[in-house]
């Protein structure tokens, strides 16, 4: 019991430390930025001051373009990501079931894993059109392969001893899958999901810059069209913050929880 209390304290201090470190880093960053601005190397229009960016922030929040963009982008992202996970997992499982097919598809998808998401855009515009579905398509194609490969390899890399022990106790079929295969593969599956998430996030901003009339990527490109660097930087900061928050608060937390339970965080 006392051990538990100590370890919980340690982690909450840990996250306080994180917050303090981040705040310190931000302060230094903004300070340097301000100094560079005051040196006047670039004209104001190319490099606004932190204060001017803050004003842009207030402006795009006030005229609702920022909240609406965030909403639209996240809605698209969630829709695409859910499809990507469902379909990717399914294909991954089929790859395991049919070994020849799995081998073939895994080398094929390894190539597509590093395929730049932006390069799907022209294809998607011509195939599906200049619309939401076209954007979803780009995001799905950019993230589904890492889900497929991670499902395939996570399950194949389960130590056989777990499956042996479960079979020995009479587990088979769906019960074996649900109560042994899935949990045994979970730490590695989460890594795949984190990777897919980051691919999806890259893809949606890129796709929105090129093929959307709303969304975070869109207000970024509007900023460019109107030579409004304040809005460009404000959008970039928003994109950065959302990416960080989702990874840290959701995926990283999940990963950490599983790793702690498994005792995978015992490295000294």
């Amino acid at each position, binding site marked *: 019991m006392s051990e538990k209390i100590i370890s919980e304290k340690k982690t909450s201090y840990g996250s306080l430390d994180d917050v303090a470190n981040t705040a310190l880093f931000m302060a230094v960053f903004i300070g340097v930025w301000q100094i560079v601005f005051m040196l006047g190397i670039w004209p104001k229009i190319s490099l606004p001051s932190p204060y001017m960016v803050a004003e842009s922030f207030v402006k795009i929040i006030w005229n609702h373009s920022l909240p609406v963009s965030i909403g639209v982008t996240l809605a698209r992202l969630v829709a695409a990501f859910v499809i990507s996970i469902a379909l990717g997992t399914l294909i991954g499982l089929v790859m395991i079931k049919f070994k020849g097919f799995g081998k073939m598809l895994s080398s094929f998808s390894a190539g597509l894993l590093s395929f730049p998401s932006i390069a799907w855009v022209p294809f998607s515009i011509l195939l599906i059109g200049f619309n939401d579905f076209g954007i979803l398509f780009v995001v799905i194609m950019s993230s589904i392969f890492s889900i497929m490969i991670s499902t395939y390899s996570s399950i194949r890399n389960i130590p056989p001893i777990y499956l042996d022990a479960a079979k020995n*106790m009479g*587990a088979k079929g769906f019960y074996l899958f649900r109560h042994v295969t899935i*949990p045994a593969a*979970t730490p590695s599956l989460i890594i795949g999901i984190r990777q897919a998430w980051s691919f999806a996030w890259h893809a949606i901003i890129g796709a929105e810059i090129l093929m959307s009339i709303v969304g975070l990527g869109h207000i970024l490109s509007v900023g460019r069209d109107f030579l409004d660097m304040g809005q460009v930087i404000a959008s970039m900061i928003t994109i950065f913050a959302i990416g960080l928050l989702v990874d840290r608060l959701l995926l990283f937390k999940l990963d950490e929880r599983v790793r702690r*339970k498994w005792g995978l965080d015992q490295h000294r």
Partner: protein
Amino acid sequence: MTKLQAKNIVKHFDHNGNSVLALDGINLNVEEGDFICIVGPSGCGKSTFLNVVAGLEKPNSGEILLNGKPISTPGPDRIMVFQEGALFPWLKVIDNVEFGLKMAGIPKGERRQISERYLDMMQLTKFADSYIYQLSTGMKQRVAIARALAMDPEILLMDEPFAALDSQTRDLLLVELQLIWERTKKTIIFVTHNISESVILGNRVVVFKNRPAKIKKEFVIDYRRPRLAEDENLQKYYHQILEELKSEVMARIKDENQ
């Protein structure tokens, strides 16, 4: 009555393209209620044999008969205590012990009762809610034993289950296992490196030859129970078995130096 029959079991493994013969025609009749100990040099094929009996490994030829019927798949009638423990890191200790019971459809209350009884026997009650990584090697081994006993199988297959235990715990469990065996009339096949362990536990001790494994000799140990580790009268069996085993271990060492 013959509980389990191994008929001419042959098993080879593929070792980087070469075929390695692990089991070279094992014939063994296990009577109901037998406590068989298998001793043999490291790497001779003891675990492989248990895996074949458990149905986890398919023999290249030969067959295993359980109650006269050939078996080829694993089943909860033959529960194994794996050499590596093989506990599930995503489950708490108590849920590990209950894994097989849950699958067998035993209701929750009864499951708890059974798992608590065996955790108590293994002196692990305090660790019921721990995760596996929080246990020492010996504690893990005891969880694995509790999990196997909780399943109450017809045949218990134990692969060096006491290897990681301190000698006090081992002595306690040596007595405990004999009592369980006498009480439940279970059939047990128990693999060990440790000759005194085999003499204390087994009513039959089977010595495996160096790889490829064959049965070299069998000893029947007819002596009152519960046998204690310090019993002088067991010494004569110990020396007989040691004599048989020594030459096999020497053969293995020679093998490895070639």
